[in-house]
C-alpha cells in the first residue's frame, strides 16, 4: 500500500508540474490568441509575421513534420473502399517527394468503421490531436454524418474522396458542414444515370430497391426510385437490411413476392455479397437482373458474391474518361502496392490530397524556423480552388463544398471478372447520352 502511495505522490507532483508548464508554455500547437478581427489575417507575402486566425493556427516547430490525416473505414468488410482512397493520398504525397513547404509529411489515419458512430469517434480523436493540419476523408457518408460537426468545430477542414450522399454538399446544408468538401460525385447524378440505364437502355419498367440504412444507400436508392418513377417505371418494393445481416432469405422472398424485373442494391460489400450469393436460391428471383453502385465496385465484393454475380450491372465513375496522367498513376500504384486499385475512389483521393496540399502551400508561413498554418485561411484557400487539373477532371470547388467533375458510366460483370481470381471490369458498357 505504502509503495503505491509513494509512486502516486511522485505522479501527482509530475502531473502538477506538467499542468503548470502547460498553462505557461501554451503548448506547441495551441491556438494563438485570436484577434478581434473576423477575417483571417492576410498571410501571403508578409514574411516574419506570425499569422492569427479565428479558427486557430497550427504551429509546427523546427524539424517537426506536417501532420496530415486520413479518416474513414480501413477495417472490416468495407475496408477496400478506404484503403483505395488512402492509397491515392499516399501516391499524391510520394509525387511531392514526401515533402511540403520543406517539411516532411506525416500521414496518420483513423478508422471510421463505415458507421456514423465510428465516424464520430474518429472525428473526436482527430479533433483532439492539435498537430493535425488537414484531413482527407471520410470514406462512407455515414462517417461524415457522424463526425463532421466535431471536425468543423475543431477548425479542421476535410475533403472526402468517396462520400456520395447528395445532402452533404446540398445548398441547404447547415453550418456544421463548413469544414467539409468532396471530390467524389453526388449520387443525385449516379442514381439518375442508373435509372436512365435501366429504363431506357435495358427497357425494364419495374424495379425493387434494397438499402442497408446507411446514409449513402438510403439516399441513392431514393434518387434511383424517384428518377425511375419520373421516367415512367414502377418501384415494386423498397426494402431494408441491417448492417451485418447474413440471412437474406426473408428479404429476398419479400422482394420476389413483389415481382420486379430488376433489383437495385446500392449497398456495401458484406450485405451486397450475401444478397447476390443467396439470390440464386430464392424462388422467383432467378430472372431478376441485379444492379449495384460504386460501393460494390471492388474485387472484395466479387469474391464475396461468388459466381452469382455474373451479369450484374454496376455504376461507377468512368475511368476511360480520366486524363492521361491516370495511366501514370496506375503505374505508380502497381509499383508501390503490387496490385491494381481495389475500388473506384483512388483517383478522387489523389485529387483531394493535391487540393489540400496546394492550399497548405498557399497559406503556410515560416517565422524563425517555426511553420505556422492558419486553419481558417486554409479552409478558405481550399474552397477557393478553381480549375485544378486532377485525374478525375478539371475541378473547381463550389461554395457548398462540391469539387467534383462527375462522369458516371455503367459496367457489367462477365465471366472474366468473376474469376478466379476476380478482377474489376475495365471498360464501361454504357455511358449516359450527352445532354
Amino acid at each position, binding site marked *: 500500500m505504502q509503495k503505491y502511495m509513494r509512486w502516486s505522490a511522485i505522479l501527482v507532483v509530475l502531473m502538477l508540474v506538467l499542468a503548470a508548464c502547460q498553462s505557461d508554455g501554451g503548448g506547441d500547437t495551441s491556438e494563438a490568441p485570436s484577434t478581434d478581427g473576423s477575417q483571417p489575417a492576410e498571410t501571403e507575402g508578409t514574411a516574419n509575421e506570425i499569422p492569427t486566425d479565428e479558427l486557430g493556427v497550427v504551429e509546427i516547430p523546427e524539424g517537426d513534420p506536417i501532420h496530415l490525416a486520413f479518416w474513414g473505414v480501413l*477495417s*472490416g*468488410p468495407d*475496408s477496400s473502399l478506404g484503403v483505395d482512397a488512402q492509397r491515392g493520398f499516399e501516391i499524391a504525397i510520394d509525387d511531392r517527394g514526401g515533402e511540403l513547404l520543406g517539411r516532411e509529411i506525416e500521414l496518420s489515419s483513423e478508422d471510421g468503421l463505415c458507421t456514423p458512430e465510428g465516424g464520430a469517434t474518429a472525428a473526436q480523436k482527430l479533433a483532439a490531436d492539435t498537430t493535425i493540419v488537414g484531413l482527407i476523408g471520410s470514406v462512407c457518408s455515414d462517417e461524415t454524418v457522424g463526425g463532421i460537426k466535431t471536425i468543423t468545430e475543431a477548425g479542421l477542414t476535410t475533403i472526402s474522396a468517396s462520400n456520395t450522399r447528395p445532402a452533404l454538399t446540398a445548398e441547404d446544408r447547415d453550418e456544421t458542414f463548413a469544414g467539409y468538401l468532396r471530390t467524389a460525385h453526388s449520387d443525385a447524378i449516379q442514381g439518375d444515370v442508373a435509372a436512365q440505364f435501366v429504363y431506357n437502355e435495358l427497357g425494364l419498367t419495374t424495379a425493387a430497391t434494397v438499402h442497408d440504412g446507411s446514409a449513402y444507400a438510403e439516399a441513392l436508392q431514393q434518387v434511383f426510385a424517384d428518377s425511375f418513377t419520373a421516367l415512367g417505371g414502377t418501384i415494386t418494393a423498397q*426494402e*431494408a*437490411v*441491417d448492417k*451485418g*445481416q*447474413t*440471412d*437474406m*432469405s*426473408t*428479404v429476398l*422472398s*419479400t422482394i*420476389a*413476392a*413483389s415481382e420486379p424485373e430488376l433489383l437495385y442494391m446500392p449497398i456495401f*460489400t*458484406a450485405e451486397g*455479397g*450475401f444478397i447476390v*450469393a*443467396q439470390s*440464386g*436460391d*430464392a*424462388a*422467383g428471383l432467378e430472372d431478376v437482373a441485379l444492379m449495384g453502385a460504386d460501393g460494390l465496385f471492388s474485387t*472484395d465484393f466479387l*469474391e*464475396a*458474391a*461468388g*459466381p452469382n454475380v455474373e451479369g450484374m450491372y454496376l455504376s461507377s465513375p468512368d475511368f476511360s474518361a480520366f486524363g492521361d496522367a491516370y495511366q501514370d498513376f496506375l503505374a505508380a500504384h502497381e509499383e508501390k502496392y503490387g496490385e491494381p486499385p481495389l475500388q473506384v475512389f483512388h483517383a478522387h483521393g489523389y485529387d483531394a490530397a493535391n487540393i489540400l496540399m496546394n492550399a497548405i502551400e498557399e497559406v503556410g508561413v515560416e517565422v524563425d524556423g517555426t511553420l505556422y498554418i492558419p486553419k481558417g485561411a486554409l479552409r478558405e484557400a481550399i474552397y477557393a480552388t478553381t480549375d485544378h487539373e486532377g485525374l478525375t477532371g478539371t475541378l473547381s470547388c463550389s461554395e457548398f463544398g462540391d469539387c467534383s467533375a462527375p462522369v458516371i458510366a455503367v459496367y457489367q460483370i462477365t465471366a472474366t471478372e468473376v474469376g478466379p481470381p476476380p478482377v474489376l471490369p475495365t471498360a464501361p458498357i454504357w455511358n449516359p447520352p450527352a445532354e
Partner: protein
Amino acid sequence: MNGSRVERFTDVAIAAFLWALRIAVILVVVVGSFLTISQGRFTGAAWIGLAIDGLVLGSIYALIALGYTMVYGILRMINFAHGEIFMAGAFGGYFAGVFLAGAGILNAHPVLSVLSIIVMICVAAALSVAISLLVERIAYRPLRNAPRLVPLISAIGASFVLQYTFRGFLGPGIYAYPDIDFLATPLPLPFDFRVRDLLIIGSAVVMMAGLYLFVMRTRYGTAMRAVSEDRSTAVLMGIDVNRTIMLTFAMGAAMAGAAGVLYGLLFRQVFFFTGFVPGIKAFTAAVLGGIGNIPGAMLGGLFLGEVESIGPILFLDGFGVPSTNQLKDVVAFTMLVLILVFRPSGILGERVSRQRA
C-alpha cells in the same frame, strides 16, 4: 419497509401486467396474421418457401443447440464460446472445400460432390473438436469448481480470443464458400425444394439421431448422463469425470463443426464473426426446447427457425410495418423472453436440476 399492503399491491400489479402482456402478444399474433393473410401479398408458394427456409435454418440451429444443451446439462455452464467453435468448423470446411475444388473433385460428379461434402464435414468436425478441447483444457477445466459466474466470464473471454485469433490468422475479409452446382438442382416436387435443402435437413436429422442413440444406448452416453445427474456420485461409481466431460465437449463441437459447413453451404460465406449471432440463437433454441434436453434442443431449433422465417412477415406485415425482415431477431428474442417468463422450463421441459439458482 413494512406493509403487506404494498406487497399485495405489487403482486396484483405484476399479475395484471403479465396478463396484459399475454393478451397483447396474442392480439398482435392473431390480428397481424389475419391482416397479413387477408391482404394476400404473399402467395402460397411464397409461404411454403419461407417455411422451407425456416426448416433449413432451424436444422442448423438445432445442431448447434445440442452442444449448448449437453454442456449445460453436465456442467451447468453456458459455453459462450460455442458459437466460435461453430465458426471454426465453417472455416475448416471452407479450406477443405477449396482444396477439393482445386483438385477438381468438388464439382466433377454428384456422387463426388456428396463425398466431398462428407469430407468437408469431417475436417470441420475435427477442427472444431480440437479447438473445443483446447478451450476446455485452458479456459474451463481449471475453473470447474469455481462459482457459476466465473466460468461464464471465462467463456466470454474464450469467445473473444477465438474470434480475434481467426481474424488475426485470416484477416477480416469475407470468404466465399466454394460453389457446388449440384446443390442448386431443384427436386421434382410441386414447390421449390433443392438438393441443398434436402442435404442440410437430412444430414442434421442423421447426426442428431446418431447423437441421441449414442447418449441413450452406449456406455459413454450412460456415463455422460450419470455425470450430468450427480457428478460426485458418478465419481464413486468409477466414472472418469474428466474424460466424460471432454467427450461431451467433443460431441457438441463435432455437431457445431458440421453445422458450420452446412451454414457455409447455405449462406455461401464465412468470416470471423460468423459464429456470434447463430451462437446466441442456438442458445435460445436450447432454452426454448428445455435446456439439458436433447430432443428439446432439436425441437427448439426447428421452432426458432420457423418463427424467425415466417414470424416477421406473418405477424407484422399486415400492420404495414416496413422492412419486416429487420425485425426477425426481435421476434426471435421476444419469443425467448416470453418463453422464459411464461414457461421457463421450455417446450419439452428442462432436464437439469430444479435447484439451479
